[in-house]
């Protein structure tokens, strides 16, 4: 390791600078528990004493974070998730998830509301995120970073991949145009074939009571997902809630586990 840099030379005693005065206040000291990250100890403390950074390894190998090794695809995916969160929350100020206004609200967001780019950012960010999350998975596979002791983090990653695709799927309905409605109609028809729980799935026809089918188009898992027999008003509202609250909350929790496990499983994997 390189020699430890010296702390910045202090001014003549008795005349501390303005910054030094601020750093000496109780407010500053109550927030930052360590000095400049210019020593090994303070660098470690900067990570350890920060609620966000402490999920990460305290130190990583330089070769481990080489762009040629990681492609930074996990980091880019996380960055895009933040972009989606910020732009998505801003879109929620204007978008109303009811059949009467949903389509027009999207048109308005693009045409008349200032910074019509916001909706495009959200859309293109979503496309990019699906791409980068696949590339991240590909990189992890090709570098063997899923091998012990990192098997569990691979599993968490697969769930996060599914959540990313579900976020894409649920968000696809919200523009409420013909493409959206028929895409979700086709997509949600898969739920009909769920074993036992979908009315066209294997085993569902065996569930009868006095000759009446228990699992029908009006009582199967697809009905619960859409809130109806077809993609209508209820489906729009349900997909909106799933898209804006339910799936993101689960994704954030799993992301915290995902990043934390990188540290717990021995830090970022390095080239063999």
């Amino acid at each position, binding site marked *: 390791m390189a020699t430890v840099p010296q702390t910045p030379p202090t001014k003549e005693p008795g005349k501390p600078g303005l910054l030094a005065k601020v750093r000496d206040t109780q407010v500053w000291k109550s927030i930052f528990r360590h000095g400049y990250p210019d020593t090994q100890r303070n660098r470690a403390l900067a990570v350890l004493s920060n609620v966000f950074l402490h999920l990460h390894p305290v130190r990583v190998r330089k070769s481990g974070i080489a762009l040629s090794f990681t492609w930074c695809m996990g980091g880019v995916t996380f960055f895009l998730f933040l972009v989606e969160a910020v732009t998505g929350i801003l879109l929620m100020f204007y978008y109303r998830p009811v059949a009467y206004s949903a389509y027009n609200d999207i048109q308005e967001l693009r045409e008349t509301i200032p910074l019509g780019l916001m909706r495009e950012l959200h859309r293109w960010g979503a496309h990019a995120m699906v791409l980068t999350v696949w590339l991240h998975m590909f990189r992890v596979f090709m570098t063997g970073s899923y091998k012990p002791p990192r098997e569990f983090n691979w599993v968490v990653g697969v769930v996060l991949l599914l959540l990313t695709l579900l976020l894409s799927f649920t968000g696809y309905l919200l523009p409420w145009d013909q493409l959206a409605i*028929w895409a979700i*109609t*086709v997509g949600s*028809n898969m739920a009909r074939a769920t074993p036992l729980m979908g009315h066209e799935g294997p085993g569902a026809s065996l569930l009868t009571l006095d000759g009446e089918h228990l699992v*029908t188009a*009006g*009582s199967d898992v697809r*009905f*619960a997902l859409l*809130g*109806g*027999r*077809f993609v*209508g*008003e*209820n489906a729009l509202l349900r997909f909106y809630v799933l898209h804006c609250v339910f799936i993101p909350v689960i994704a954030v929790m799993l992301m915290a586990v995902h990043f934390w496990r990188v540290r717990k499983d021995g830090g970022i994997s390095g080239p063999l």
Partner: protein
Amino acid sequence: MSEETKPSGKPRAKEPEATEPKPHVTDSRFGLRTGVPAVKKGTKEQLPIDPMAEGEKPFEAPDLASRREVFWMAAGWGLFGFATLTETAMLVSYLFPRAPFDPAQVFKIGPPEEYLPNSVSEAFKKSNQVWICNQEYNGKQILYALSTVCTHLGCTPNWLEADQKFKCPCHGSGFYANGVNFEGPAPRPLERFRIFVGDDGGVVVDKTKKFQQEKGEWDDPDSYIAV
């Protein structure tokens, strides 16, 4: 450390006045040091420390929960399990709205004479997702209600009068007027719904019962009205 004595009255693990430290046995049940001296220092037999090996087997209560403990455990976990199951069932039922925005499943479509021979009516396509067809099928002129849901992936085909066929805009599936598929990816014919003449002479369609050609259900008299 404070100088308080244990309620059991046993000697403490470390007595300040004791001049020589005492070895300790391990209580296997709790993995704790009990503070009972096993062997006094200075005697010849310092080892083994395990009292079992000394020949005398100390009394050990069997490590079983008492009847009372079992009762309360069962009661507690039973209550917890019951509450969890009930809550889950309620949560699942919450997902099924009692009044969805779906159109009525059973509805009247007027007298049978309204539907001319060899015609396909789209009057109830938008409102109830059925075509009312008066067509010849297997040598009989019949009236039947055909589902507008494509059997491929669930889009809504269009009735092309000039071509006398249903054509799905999504992936190009084609169906004859009788509902049988003949082109595109659709794997099976369109479905029929139950149809019958009501008490007032008007035709009623019941979408809760469907009839599939590939299962031989189109021979069921409930699936058509002879006209």
